[in-house]
Each structure stands twice: as structure tokens, then as C-alpha cells.
């Protein structure tokens, strides 16, 4: 008697080899047989007409905080994602001394757009070390987690407030090495750092005060464990990105570590730049380096309201200053004051072509409900004002709770994005899952890959796409016994309908602690998801108790 048999499915085993029809049998959390299975099982899934694949691995998320109140990382599991990597971009929730908790919350709020109230009301701060944080999230964990240590946090732990001001001394670097070893021993999957991010004061995050010798010393520790170094380069400029990937390549070769940088976007105006970056990636791989560019599948959509800061306005200091530092009343006053309003409109003139295309997607009061779904261009015509004035007027009328959608802002050329996703040296990822929750949905990128780029655009075969988000990712990150369907491997499995798998429409839901909201996308076409052989989610039964693991696992 097996624990689980998935019958009659089309097995896409994660290797990239052609799909085949077989049953999959599971016992004690492991795949034990693939082929014709006559014996019975405690749970039998009829997968006729469906694909049976390894669970997907999402290598770039910020679920660090959400895992404290939601061990499923909803809705990631429902999309077939069975392993997530939090702690990217130099930010993790451990190691973290009590005196730096609000500093970190501020950085998460500024960089990853996580609401302060969610931290205040959803987090019980009962850990400091990385091992304590791991013990904390393991309670109720239903998804596998491969957590990174944030470089900015590591600096704060060792250097205190000086981490935000200066380079480290030799003793402090040695201290960071020691703490990093403790984190890796406690199960960390690697280290993340950032060369672009700014903190809540709009000053460089601590990792940007590190000199090359500090990063080299930390990479040496990663080399002792063969673990990952993730960075955020200056992705807006190809020369800077190339300089960073050269820096990564030297560290990769010197310390024999995998490295990855994210994001890499392709737009109509930077195709040549992306081609230059990818040429350099190829050259560095040919030298023996591992420098994996991460490319997200979805186009860039941005929603915003003026009650919270939006990265859409970060290029405009007048706007961003009041959104970031202004009180609710001060923002309203700025919009009401004719002079201030005129200055704001003038400053944001570069977005003049965008305003008419913004869609009003959510309002608080009934008076404007009929306008939801219309563009600002349409609303402006109805009201006899300009689109930007319509946006400001609606925000005043709705007490700043008018939400606008800037859809498909970039990374939306199917041919170019598809070409990148299919590139053998591109790492499919960069979802940012769990972050930017009031700007866009960071969930469903795998559904978009398999629905849009496989089924609709045909940029990749189904087998190639599944390989990208399963065995490729496991191999890149050194995660053993996951990412393939084969006997002996852990039974992280997703069953989905290849004809319907997708991401659903973006929805605005109130499931964040502190009465907060976020944009999410439900899954479409996913039938059931198993973690370690246990049902973790199914379309019929919803979320179920499963036991996620910390990966790649405790150091030997």
C-alpha cells in the first residue's frame, strides 16, 4: 500500500526530456515508482488529461514576514510552487537584534513596499539569531523554504548603526564571516546583497557601504559551503550590470560558488543592452563562472493610490517626498493647494503620455463606483478636465483611496521576453513573491510561463519550461533530491491541466494583518500540489496541512 498514487497522468519529469504517460507512486514522502502501478494507496489522484510535474521552485521572493503568519505563503502553493527563496536583495528577518527591528521594518517598507501595520500587528518578535528565526517559521510551515541571509542585516548585527555609515574593519569582517557561518549551519541557502536599494530615509542600505574586500570575505565563507550569492545590480544600465556580473564572475571562479543577479528586464528600448549583457553572461560562463541572470515571466503592471508611497513616482522628488514622508492630511493639503498641485503636475510631465491610459480600478465611495474600469482619459473627457487633474480630483474625493492601474508598463514584448526565458543561461525567477503587495501581484508567474509562453506564444516547449522552474533551479541552488520526478526524490509534485494553467485576474483582497490589503492572483488550471508527499493544496480541498522543509538542509 502506497501513501499516494497519481494515475494516468502525463509525466513531465523536470529533466526536459519528452513527456510520457505513467503512474507515480509515493511512500514516506519519497517517489518510489514511476510506471504502471497496480497497487492501491491511501490517496489516489486521477490525473487523466493532466500533467504531473515536480513542484516549482521560486528563487526570488520576499515572503520572510508573511511566513510568520502564513506558513503556506499563500497563494504561492496554489500555483504549484513548493519551494520559495526569501531573504533576497540584502534583506532578511534574521539575524536581527531587537534594537534593529524597526530599522529593518523601515527598509522592508521602503524597498519591498510591505505595510508597517502588517509588521506591527502580524509579527511577534521572538527571535534574534538565524537559527531562532528558522525555528520560528518551521511552526506551521507547509511550503519548503530556502532562506538567504541579507547582507544589510548581517552588517547591522555585527557593526550596529555604523553599518549604515562606513566600511567594516578587519575584525568586523571576521565577525560577519563567523555569523554567516552560523546562519549557513542553521540552514541558510546563501547570502544576498544589493547595490541599488535605499533605506527608509532614502539613504543607501548598509550593504552598499561594504567595500570589495568585505564581499570577497563573505563569498569565501559561501565557498566553504558551496552556497549562493544573490545581488541586485544597477539593472537600469547595461554597462553597470556588466561591471557587476564581471565582479560576480570573479567571486564565482575564485570561491567556486553559484551567483545570480536580478532582475533583468527587456523592453523595446533596451534590446541591444540586454543582448550585450547576455553576451557577457555567455563569455563568463565559458570562463567557468556561474553568473545566472534572473528573468521574470510577467509584464510590469503597477497599481497605486496616494495613501502609500509608490515606486512609480520615485523619479519625481516632489511627489515621492509627500508620499513617503507626508501625513495623510499633508498629502490631501498638497493636492488641494493650487500652487503645489501645479508644481507636482509640472514635475511629472514625463508621465503625461501615461496618465490617459491609467485605469481606475478601485474606489471607496459609491459616488465614483460607476467610473471603475474606465481610463483616466475617459474620465477626464466626462469631467472636462485633464487626465492628471482627474487622477488628483478622484484621489481627493476618495480620501486617497482611489486606486489606479498602469498596465503592461514594460517587459511585455512576447518575442523578446520569450527569447530570454528560453535562453539556456537564463534563470527563470525574480517574482518578488510576497513584496510590493500594494503595487502589483507577485504570484502566478509560473502559471503565466506555462499558459502564456508555452501554450499561447510557444516560446518554449512544456518540457523545457517545466525544467526551467524545477530541476534547473534545484541544480543552480544546490538543492538536492528536488526538482525531478524520479524514484528516491522527495515527492514535491504538482498536477495541472496544460490546457488551462494560467494566473487568474488580479484581485484586491484583505488578508494582510492589521486589516491590510494586497493584490493577488489565484491559480488557474492547477489541480493539486504535494509537498513531501502530503497534499498541501488542491482545487477541490483548498490548503491542507503539509510539512515544508528548510532547504538545502542543515550543513553536515
Amino acid at each position, binding site marked *: 500500500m502506497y501513501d499516494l498514487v497519481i494515475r494516468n497522468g502525463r509525466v513531465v519529469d523536470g529533466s526536459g526530456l519528452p513527456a510520457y504517460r505513467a503512474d507515480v507512486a509515493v511512500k514516506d514522502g519519497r517517489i518510489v515508482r514511476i510506471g504502471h502501478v497496480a497497487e492501491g494507496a491511501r490517496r489516489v489522484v486521477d490525473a487523466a488529461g493532466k500533467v504531473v510535474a515536480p513542484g516549482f521552485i521560486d528563487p526570488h521572493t520576499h515572503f520572510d514576514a508573511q511566513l510568520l503568519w502564513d506558513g503556506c505563503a499563500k497563494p504561492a502553493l496554489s500555483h504549484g510552487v513548493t519551494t520559495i527563496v526569501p531573504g533576497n536583495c540584502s534583506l532578511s528577518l534574521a539575524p536581527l537584534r531587537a534594537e534593529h527591528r524597526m530599522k529593518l521594518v523601515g527598509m522592508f517598507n521602503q524597498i519591498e513596499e510591505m505595510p508597517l501595520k502588517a509588521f506591527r500587528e502580524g509579527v511577534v518578535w521572538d527571535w534574534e539569531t538565524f537559527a531562532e528565526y528558522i525555528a520560528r517559521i518551521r511552526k506551521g510551515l507547509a511550503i519548503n523554504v530556502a532562506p538567504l541571509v541579507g547582507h544589510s542585516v548581517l552588517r547591522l548585527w555585527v557593526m550596529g548603526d555604523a553599518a549604515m555609515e562606513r566600511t567594516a574593519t578587519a575584525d568586523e569582517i571576521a565577525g560577519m564571516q563567523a555569523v554567516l557561518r552560523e546562519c549557513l549551519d542553521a540552514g541558510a541557502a546563501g547570502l544576498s546583497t544589493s547595490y541599488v536599494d535605499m533605506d527608509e530615509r532614502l539613504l543607501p542600505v548598509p550593504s552598499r557601504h561594504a567595500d570589495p574586500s568585505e564581499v570577497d570575505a563573505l563569498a569565501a565563507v559561501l565557498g566553504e559551503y558551496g552556497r549562493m550569492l544573490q545581488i541586485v545590480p544597477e539593472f537600469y544600465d547595461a554597462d553597470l550590470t556588466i561591471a557587476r556580473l564581471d565582479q560576480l564572475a570573479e567571486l564565482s571562479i575564485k570561491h567556486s560558488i553559484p551567483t545570480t543577479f536580478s532582475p533583468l528586464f527587456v523592453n523595446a528600448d533596451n534590446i541591444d543592452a540586454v543582448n550585450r549583457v547576455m553576451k*557577457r553572461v555567455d*563569455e563568463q560562463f565559458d570562463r567557468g563562472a556561474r553568473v545566472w541572470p534572473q528573468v521574470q515571466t510577467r509584464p510590469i503592471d503597477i497599481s497605486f493610490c496616494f495613501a502609500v508611497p509608490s515606486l512609480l513616482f520615485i523619479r519625481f522628488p516632489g511627489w515621492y517626498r509627500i508620499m513617503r514622508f507626508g501625513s495623510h492630511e499633508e498629502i490631501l493639503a498638497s493636492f488641494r493647494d493650487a500652487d503645489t498641485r501645479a508644481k507636482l503636475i509640472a514635475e511629472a510631465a514625463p508621465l503625461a503620455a501615461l496618465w490617459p491610459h491609467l485605469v481606475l480600478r478601485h474606489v471607496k465611495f459609491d459616488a465614483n463606483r460607476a467610473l471603475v474600469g474606465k481610463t483616466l482619459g475617459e474620465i477626464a473627457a466626462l469631467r472636462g478636465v485633464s487626465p492628471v487633474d482627474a487622477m488628483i480630483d478622484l484621489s481627493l474625493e476618495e480620501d486617497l483611496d482611489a486606486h489606479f492601474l498602469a498596465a503592461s508598463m514594460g517587459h511585455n514584448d512576447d518575442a523578446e521576453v520569450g527569447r530570454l526565458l528560453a535562453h539556456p543561461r537564463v534563470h527563470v525567477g525574480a517574482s518578488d513573491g510576497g513584496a510590493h503587495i500594494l503595487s502589483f501581484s507577485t504570484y502566478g508567474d509560473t502559471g503565466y510561463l506555462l499558459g502564456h509562453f508555452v501554450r499561447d506564444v510557444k516560446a518554449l516547449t512544456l518540457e523545457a519550461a517545466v525544467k526551467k522552474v524545477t530541476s534547473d533551479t534545484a541544480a543552480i541552488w544546490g538543492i538536492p533530491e528536488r526538482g525531478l520526478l524520479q524514484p528516491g526524490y522527495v515527492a514535491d509534485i504538482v498536477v495541472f491541466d496544460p490546457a488551462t494553467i494560467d494566473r487568474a485576474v488580479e484581485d484586491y483582497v484583505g488578508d494582510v494583518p492589521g486589516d491590510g490589503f494586497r493584490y493577488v492572483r489565484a491559480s488557474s488550471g492547477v489541480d493539486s500540489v504535494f509537498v513531501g508527499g502530503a497534499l498541501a493544496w488542491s482545487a477541490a480541498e483548498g490548503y491542507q496541512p503539509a510539512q515544508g522543509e528548510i532547504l538545502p538542509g542543515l550543513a553536515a
Partner: protein
Amino acid sequence: MGELSRVRRSILPMPGDGWGEIARRELPDVAEADAVSRLQSWNLHVYMRATMRTGGPGNPILPSDVIFVEPPLASA
């Protein structure tokens, strides 16, 4: 081992580096004021890094910054 093609030349700052120090080291044949001016124009990501509080250019160079020591290469 593969060969690397030529890319725009850059450095990572050394301890204590400011614009003048980098100018003297990387552009020794150029008058310092002119060299500093060139470096700043090639590194607007550093020189014009806006600080939302002061609003002005000229931020100190961070130890993690990439500093270009030549202009962008001409397109092939």
C-alpha cells in the same frame, strides 16, 4: 577557458577614494580638475545620485560603487 571581449573600463573604489584620488590614479595624464569633471560626467549614477533630503548632486562615492574610467564605448 573562453576569452572576454572588451567592455567599458571601470574600477571599484579603494579605501579613501574621492573624485580627486581616482582622477590622479586613473587619468594621470589629464589635469586634475578636467579629469574630475570627466569622471563625474561618466558616472552620473554616483555624481547625480539624488538624495531626497538634500536634493543636490555630488554624493560621496560609496565603497561599493562601480566607477567608470572611460566614456561609453561606441556601438559596434
